[in-house]
């Protein structure tokens, strides 16, 4: 295969890693019925926390844990406000996303482009020498591997374990799950926290892996992309990852032609990922998928449905009134 293509694909996988982590985290959260709309601000604030702790201690692990901690706490605030206080998840999430972003921009002032975190590049012996595959997937930094693990683990957990079945039940039919003896709200706390932790890890992946420095721009906005990709991905980890790589691929195309066009065109090209986001949401949620299927041969229906059909968890965004506990 063409060397340039391999390098581009490897770059897409690397640049997409933080968004994959965040989107997989949000997938788990939403599968349980909670929307963590604070994702974007959470990503920025955890990125800053990871950078400050990472550069302060010189340890990637300490930095990543700081990011995870921040993401986890923010997610728990959303869960608490929804479950205990019955507040709108959208209202709390939106205010939190603004607050966290502004807090990060303010606290991050002294760290603006201060230094670059030492690389976490970690080629895997033997595997990295497999032609094509090795160069794309196994010649990467630490956080890229974590993003692969997150996708596979989330899929396995959701669809191959009993705990995953319980999680999906809580997101689809909380009453039924409760009758079967599941502590619905405890499950929701657990997976909101877990999902928030993954979002925090995504933030750490920016400042300790992809960038790898603190900057005002380059992180904010990606959380919203992740939230949209969860919908496009139909709450399925593999499709979510595919969606992320689609956006990352488009971005890499834009970056590669940036030098050859005047600045006003570059700015317009930067709008393309957002147009793609609207287009994909339109495809999966609009009434047009059915119309599209009608004109295509029936043989193609099942694969297209698997790829494009998106149905949110039935109890997404709702409050569950557990009996005996008000």
């Amino acid at each position: 295969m063409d060397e340039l293509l391999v390098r581009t694909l490897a770059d897409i996988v690397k640049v997409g890693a933080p968004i994959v982590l965040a989107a997989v985290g949000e997938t788990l959260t939403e599968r349980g019925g909670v929307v963590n709309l604070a994702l974007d601000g959470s990503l920025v604030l955890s990125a800053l926390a990871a950078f400050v702790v990472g550069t302060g201690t010189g340890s990637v692990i300490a930095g990543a844990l700081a990011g995870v901690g921040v993401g986890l706490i923010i997610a728990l605030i959303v869960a608490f406000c929804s479950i205990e206080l019955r507040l709108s998840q959208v209202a709390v999430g939106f205010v939190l996303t603004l607050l966290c972003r502004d807090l990060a921009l303010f606290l991050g002032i002294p760290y603006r482009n201060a230094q670059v975190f030492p690389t976490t590049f970690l080629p895997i012996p033997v595997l990295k020498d497999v032609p094509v595959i090795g160069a794309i997937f196994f010649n990467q930094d630490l956080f890229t591997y974590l993003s692969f693990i997150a996708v596979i683990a989330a899929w396995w957990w959701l669809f191959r374990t009993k705990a995953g079945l319980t999680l999906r039940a809580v997101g689809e039919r909380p009453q039924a799950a409760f009758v079967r003896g599941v502590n619905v709200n405890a499950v929701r706390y657990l997976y909101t926290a877990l999902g928030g932790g993954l979002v925090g890890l995504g933030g750490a992946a920016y400042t300790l892996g992809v960038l790898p420095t603190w900057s005002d721009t380059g992180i904010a906005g990606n959380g919203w992309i992740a939230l949209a990709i969860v919908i496009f991905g139909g709450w399925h980890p593999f499709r979510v990852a595919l969606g992320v790589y689609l956006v990352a691929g488009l971005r890499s195309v834009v970056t590669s032609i940036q030098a050859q066009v005047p600045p006003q065109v570059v700015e317009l090209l930067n709008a393309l990922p957002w147009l793609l986001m609207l287009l994909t949401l339109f495809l999966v949620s609009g009434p047009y998928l059915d119309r599209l299927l009608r004109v295509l041969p029936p043989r193609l229906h099942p694969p297209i449905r698997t790829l494009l059909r998106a149905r949110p968890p039935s109890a997404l965004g709702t409050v569950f009134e557990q009996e005996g506990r008000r």
Partner: protein
Amino acid sequence: MNLAKARGALLTFSGALGVALVLIALIMLSLDKAPLAAGRRFLDGVFGTPSARADVVMAALPMLLCAAGLLLTFTAGLWNIGVEGQVTMGAIFATIIARTIPRDVSEWGILAALILPAELLLAMLGGALWAGLTALLKLRGGINEIFGGVALNFISVNILLSLVNGPWRVGTFPQTAPFASAALLPRHPELRLSPLAIAIALIAFGAVFMALRGTRFGLALRAIGRNAKSAGILGVRVERHILWAMIACGALAGLAGAFQVLFTRGRLLPNISGGIGFMGVLIVLLVGVRAAWVLPVALFVATVPVGSLKLATSLDSSVQIDAALGNVFQGALVLAVLIGGGIRARLAARRKERAEHG
């Protein structure tokens, strides 16, 4: 009953204000700043002089316009996060005319009187188009207005940056030339104040207030906000009302964008909105979609950016602090109000339950 409710809301607000202030004070202390001195400087910077008070009033106007529009959409249960992009489009559309106006319009005669109305109408059209697009994406494409709005916010910024980096750029920085005075909102001779802008904003807010209180349109929006499905069954044209609520909000946000270019900045430049659309959202969340409170709360919220700027430009290093802290304060305050309201509602529910069960 109503009095008790208002007292409760005020109590929540004061408590939340205290929490937010303590948070800001702690952040300041951790940075070796003097919170009390900064507070005095802040209050002086927003109330101390007539010009400071004028700045607060003028800063409040675009927020008031956005909040007024958002009252309509929130009443119908819509999260018009796209208001930020609608402000930006308003600013861009106003600039289409404003940048072509020459310094000397003495020979224009009656046409000169039409410049400002044309700019404002075009700005409203720009905002309305952007909001209408969000509504269409929702109604025809099944895209939640939050995601449609967020995407269109980013796209509007890309369009703005493309214009000020390309065809509209004048000079070394990515911005237009300063507009001619004939293109700007007329200014008070001494203060940084535009009586016409104040009148327009108050009339717009009054119109929204009346529409929500005493018209079929307002009633229909409330019905949709409570339960869109039942409203539809009872004969309310849900889709049409959603579209018009969004378009009205977009038009008001576009007007706010026009105020930004035709008064506050006097030219088009990057980040022209400066987050006033989001501040509008925060204001409406602060007052819990109660229209009567919007006016005083908008004035209160407007003190934050004005006062923060005074602190940021202060020469005294013990109170000099970046204006971004003001945004942190606003976010913390709204979050605290939401949580405080939630706690109060839970306590009330628990009391009621205990009374019922003996």
